[in-house]
């Protein structure tokens, strides 16, 4: 068997957390909370490892002089932000400024690019996958968008804004989303059980 100790730990911890969730036994509940606290520490450590992994990749690029400028800038930004977060408290002007003047504008800019990408993709979809469902998808998206828009001089479009859009969002769209989420929930349960049975072991080497 691949990595028997890791498998035993995963099955044991998973079993305790599952039982602690369902059975109101104080000892189990406390043990579950303790294990979850350990998991929080592990997640933080994993985040640090991820930062190191990212740095390693860009350090190699920097030393190989392959797009060294971009990689150097990224390394300075990554570890500069890290040091800033260590030196100053989270609510300080320096850290808030970093988010407000750098991270937020970059995120918003990418969101703008995303909007353009989606409009272009929606148009491409009709060419790539023509059919009833594509027409239905695009028509619904257009009606929802138009229903959320106020026209100059008219305001919200009558019937579309107050009747059709809420109905589309609350009845067929919500029903479809709930159906998808039920499928996702069942898939999640199956995945959890496979890990508890030791069938899925991504941690073994």
């Amino acid at each position: 068997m691949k990595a028997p100790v890791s498998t035993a730990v995963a099955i044991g911890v998973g079993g305790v957390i599952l039982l602690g969730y369902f059975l109101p036994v104080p000892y189990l509940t406390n043990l579950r909370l303790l294990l979850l606290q350990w998991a929080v520490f592990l997640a933080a450590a994993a985040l640090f490892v991820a930062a190191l992994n990212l740095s390693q990749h860009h350090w190699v690029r920097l030393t190989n002089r392959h797009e060294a400028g971009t990689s150097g800038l990224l390394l300075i930004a990554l570890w500069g932000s890290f040091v800033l977060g260590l030196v100053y408290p989270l609510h300080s002007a320096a850290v808030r400024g970093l988010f407000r003047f750098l991270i937020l504008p970059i995120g918003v800019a990418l969101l703008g690019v995303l909007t353009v990408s989606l409009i272009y993709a929606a148009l491409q979809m009709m060419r790539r996958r023509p059919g009833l469902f594509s027409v239905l998808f695009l028509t619904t998206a257009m009606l929802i968008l138009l229903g959320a828009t106020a026209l100059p001089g008219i305001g919200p479009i009558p019937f579309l804004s107050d009747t059709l859009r809420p109905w589309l969002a609350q009845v067929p769209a919500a029903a479809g989303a709930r159906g998808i989420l039920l499928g996702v929930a069942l898939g999640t349960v199956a995945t959890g059980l496979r890990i508890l049975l030791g069938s899925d072991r991504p941690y073994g080497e």
Partner: protein
Amino acid sequence: MTAWTTGLTDIAGLVCVALFLAVMLLGLVVKVPRPGRDLRPLHALRRLRQAIFLTVESGQRLHVSLGRGLLMHQQMAVGMVGLRALERLVSMTAAGDRPTIVTAGTGPLGILSRSTLHSAYETHHWEERYRPTDARVTGLTPFAYAAGAGEVIATENVAANFFLGAFGPEVALLADQAAARGEFVAAGSDSVLAQAVLYAVAEEPLIGEEAFAAAAYLGAGGLHATSLIAEDVFRWLLIALMVGGALFKLVGGHP
């Protein structure tokens, strides 16, 4: 809700989980369904297999993107399926000139993807093909991850992409970039928002629980296939309960 009914709900939940497990194990004893024969064919995954063979033939790379599954969050489940699918995909592409490349957006998934990659090569006695740099964490926020993974798509001689994990709408940037370069894209996520976006952008989107079935359809083994049967059984039970509940309310019944 009283303590008695809360206790009853907890016990019912545990019984449901136990029944789900029983159906999965029963499937192993009775008959393991074979995807494509006993289970409906999934077009997206059939196309992915074809794209992989073409990728290997042309000496290019497969890019697997595992998204941003967080530890202690239900999003990690689809990431776990992605890791199992990765194991299968590595064995399908290991004969090629260029190894599969993996990107992840969180620390735990980054560590696990590296471990899965190593383990998959080791299982097939291709240890010399394993390179730690083939599994990368490309960014720690959604858009940073998308930007980093986009760079992999653009610079690593990728011909086919498989996105399977927890994504947000930023996955559109990845799929759009790959499509613009003429690369194949199959993609699935547990998020409804990402699925809606992928329906428009990806060449082959996986909708709903299809993302969770991916590993089974790529030949991950018995329990993956029987868990699809358990999911179907419980889906029908839920449908019956919902229709029954609606009819019960319609005739004026009170729970």
